[in-house]
């Protein structure tokens, strides 16, 4: 038997044992023996209390009992509400339900079983949420419970069975009709008890709520400003929402770690949750590593993974390395993106005021003569076929990475879930992100190899000495040279109307070189940090958990820088700019329109003319 099948076999056996042992005790009284739902099924059955400013809803969803949707579905109303109070219609004032009340589950066979939540209350009193902790809670919107209502309601509403398929994937095949197969032989004669208990037990093999619902429960107190201030608690729900687990939950991943995954010790239940200072607490520094490395979470990780901050509240983390790194990236973004953006905006102002720099007539004339030369047109191609192919591969991979990565960054925005949905959910989106990242790194490596090969060949052709290597290195076309810096300032002066002539560049403008080097830096940084985050269990053996925090920050801020640079400036330069709209031909043919070439790449024309032996005044080549 394969290892992967063993849990399901075990689950099936447990269900059978449970069914056989519990079925005879099961209550058979149907959902609503007293017919309370005749009135209470109406959502409008309600009133508003002007004195307290609160509405009282008396609605009970009949689907709950009719569809056997939860463990309380087969309780009669009077199992919780006092019969002597609710049996009389119209009801007089009703005492709030005591959740610790003893009820009697009776079966078809007449065997009754006493049931009470008293033991749960006893457990709770040993936990961080003991009675004293819950007493006197005050909320921003006023009291959330009625006086004397059970404090269980802070966390519990009507419990639901989760889809059995959450715990037993094979049940997915049955689309909620798990027992239809039984009907083939049993003709609907299987007792409802069996279905009910299988649902109940199957549901219990998974957490009672999915991650987001669990967070909603905890958020009632742990995100309320008044509670946080009163109890001097951090806003854990906010920081959870910023963590990977929180974002995954927001994007619909119900299997990611919930609050209880970390805050309840494996094998315990939520009512035994301890404070961090308790030696038995799952988040006590002594136990935290084991909590992270539990069988269902990060089993292969080093204990160092516990240093990764799940509740990293960056704005409040002044003085930490994480804060400093984030600040540095923000500064880097402003310093790199800002000037480029300024140039683009100033360029647009030139159009608005009707100022144009058509290039010198001399360069225009020279360009015409170069184009007329048999080899001239080819020499003016700015991007080779290989470069264009690499560019388009990069564009596709970049788009995929952004589409699958940015929803995680902005998981709390409505569009994020939609975009993730296009990929079939977060699981698939992450796979696409990882493989697109791998492809990018492989492509980058291939490009780097090609660059180095060209460099070595060129250096060897030049003589192969150390000085030749140095010169070749410095002469590589994508380096930003002092001349580029000078010309960039000249361009700025021109755009600010401080200079008459627009400077012209060679094959690649400083902006293009800057973008190229940005891809170099970005791919290395995003690739390395991405690999660390992807293989966090292996990475934890190599680096500390804090380093994973730093990797997360670097990855997310660098990705943001890349996206705004490409999304705003590069897209402007190659798509939206008036002279290239709707798409720069250079991205497809490698050729730049002559006007633009003359205006921005005049030096290239002059270089090519010189190489081809075209003299500015030589009519023989005209």
């Amino acid at each position, binding site marked *: 038997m394969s290892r992967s099948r063993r849990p399901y076999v075990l689950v099936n056996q447990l269900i059978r044992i449970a069914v056989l042992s519990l079925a005879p005790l099961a209550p058979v009284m149907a959902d609503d023996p007293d017919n309370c739902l005749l009135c209470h099924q109406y*959502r409008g059955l309600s009133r508003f209390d002007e004195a307290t400013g609160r509405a009282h809803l008396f609605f009970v969803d009949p689907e709950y009992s009719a569809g056997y949707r939860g463990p309380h579905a087969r309780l009669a109303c009077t199992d919780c509400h006092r019969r002597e109070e609710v049996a009389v*219609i119209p009801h007089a004032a009703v005492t709030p339900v005591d959740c610790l009340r003893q009820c009697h589950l009776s079966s078809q066979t007449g065997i009754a079983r006493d049931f009470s939540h008293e033991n749960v209350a006893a457990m709770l009193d040993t936990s961080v949420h003991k009675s004293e902790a819950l007493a006197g809670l005050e909320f921003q919107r006023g009291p959330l419970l009625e006086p004397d209502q059970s404090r269980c309601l802070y966390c519990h509403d009507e419990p639901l069975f989760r889809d059995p398929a959450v715990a037993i994937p094979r049940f997915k095949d049955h689309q909620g009709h798990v027992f239809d197969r039984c009907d083939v032989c049993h003709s609907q004669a299987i007792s409802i008890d069996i279905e009910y208990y299988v649902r109940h037990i199957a549901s219990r093999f998974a957490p009672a709520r999915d991650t987001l619902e669990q967070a909603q429960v905890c958020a009632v107190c742990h995100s309320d400003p008044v509670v946080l201030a009163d109890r001097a608690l951090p806003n854990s729900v906010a*920081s959870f929402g910023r963590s990977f687990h929180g974002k995954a939950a927001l994007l619909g991943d119900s299997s990611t770690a919930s609050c209880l995954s970390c805050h309840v010790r494996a094998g315990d239940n939520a009512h035994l949750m301890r404070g961090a200072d308790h030696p038995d607490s799952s988040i006590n520094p002594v136990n935290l590593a084991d909590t992270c490395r539990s069988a269902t979470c990060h089993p292969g990780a080093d204990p160092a993974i516990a240093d990764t901050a799940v509740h990293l509240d960056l704005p409040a983390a002044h003085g930490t390395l994480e804060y400093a790194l984030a600040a540095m990236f923000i500064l880097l973004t402003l310093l790199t993106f800002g000037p480029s953006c300024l140039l683009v905006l100033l360029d647009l102002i030139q159009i608005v005021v009707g100022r144009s720099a058509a290039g010198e007539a001399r360069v225009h004339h020279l360009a015409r003569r170069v184009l007329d030369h048999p080899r001239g047109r080819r020499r003016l191609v700015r991007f080779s076929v290989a470069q264009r192919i690499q560019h388009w591969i990069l564009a596709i991979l970049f788009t995929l990475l952004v589409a699958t990565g940015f929803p995680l960054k902005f998981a709390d925005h409505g569009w994020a879930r939609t975009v993730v949905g296009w990929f079939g959910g977060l699981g698939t989106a992450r796979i696409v992100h990882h493989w697109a990242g791998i492809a990018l790194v492989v492509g980058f490596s291939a490009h780097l190899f090609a660059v180095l090969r060209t460099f070595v060949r060129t250096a060897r052709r030049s003589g192969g000495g150390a000085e030749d290597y140095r010169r070749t290195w410095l002469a590589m076309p994508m380096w930003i040279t002092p001349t580029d810096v000078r010309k960039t300032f000249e361009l700025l002066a021109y755009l600010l109307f401080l200079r008459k002539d627009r400077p012209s560049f060679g094959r690649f403008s400083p902006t293009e070189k800057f973008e190229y080097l940005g891809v170099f830096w970005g791919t290395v940084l995003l690739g390395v940090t991405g690999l660390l985050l992807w293989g966090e269990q292996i990475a934890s053996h190599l680096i500390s958990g804090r380093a994973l925090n730093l990797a997360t920050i670097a990855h997310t801020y660098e990705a943001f820088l890349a996206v705004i640079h490409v999304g705003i400036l590069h897209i402007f330069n190659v798509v939206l700019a008036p002279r290239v709209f709707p798409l720069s031909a250079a991205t497809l043919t490698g050729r730049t329109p002559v006007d633009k070439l003359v205006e921005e790449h005049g030096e290239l024309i002059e270089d090519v003319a010189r190489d081809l032996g075209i003299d500015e005044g030589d009519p023989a080549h005209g």
Partner: protein
Amino acid sequence: MVERMTKSKLQRVGVYLRAALRLAGRAAAMAIPRGYAIALFVLITWTTWMAVRYLVTSLASADTAPTQITNLPTRLDRAALGAERSAFDALDAAEHPRSPLAHYHRLDNWIRPDPFNDCTRSGCHGPLPHSRSQDVRAFLNMHATSIHCGVCHFNSEHRPRKLVWYDQTTGRPGEPPAILRAQELVTGPDAPARWKKADASDQRELVRLIRLAARDGGGLRSLDQLADHLEAYRVGSRGFEQVLAEAPAILRRHCRGEYGAKLAMVAQDGSGPQRGHPRTNRAVSEWLANQDTTDAELRARLLNAVHPLRREQALNCTDCHAARDSLVDFAAMGYPREGIERFVAPTLFRMIEHIHAGRPFNLPGVLEDDTAKPPGTRP
């Protein structure tokens, strides 16, 4: 001479005209790229501003929890009652969102305020307006989800009342709610014969109505699921018949006043639903400005002015819940016949009479629901 002068003048005008046209053409030719450049300038500036703002706030402002987690109606106060479902992000983020704390019972759906009921939208009455009689206030509010205040509180001589359904999203008169029509399709007296010879178009119509009902009810999942199942099978197949057999019970459970439509009196001029007292805007403003007055005479005058159609005495339950001479012609209003029988059933009638007469009664003896399932059967 004169002729020559006129000719030269005309020539000069022509030159000016041509120059003006050329100038206009050039200006137009320049206007397009300039407009485009301005639009791009604005777009890039705005995008950059948003990006920089995000970066700065990501480090400078305090973390807030995502609204998909926190924005729930945890407390059922006046503000929560008046808000649309869409005001609570968290309700749609999770499959089973947290219920309002004090309510406990599942409330996957949300109470929908009626944006076309002038009585509540004027600010005079709340969405749960009945509060005086402790015994019956909840029963009366129960009707407010599907019946406009005017049905019981407006004067009318018509017997039965002239009523019309109005859509709660548009305020316009419309057909009876989809859930009622769907229920009639599967439970009406002619249902067995109809479905015996039904074809794909009948199936499509039923599925359409159920989906509409799910939407009108504010996103009722089990109705959507029923429609999915009905759609999945071929008409006449065993699977279809099985699902069809389940349909009445499921539909019946959803005929509980969440119709996305309300019954209202037809306006006196027959123009549509009477959703409030006509021509009372000024009177309403006056009342709202003086509602705390202690001057009884002023109070009475203002209240009379805002309620020109008001009946002295609202209708009694048994005026409508009666097998004979009911003020509501339920059949004409599209209620399924099965439902009508329940509305006017002696059991219910007896119960209402007890409540109305202030005679408390005990639960099980009085209420017998014929549709209760025998114990031990599968749902």
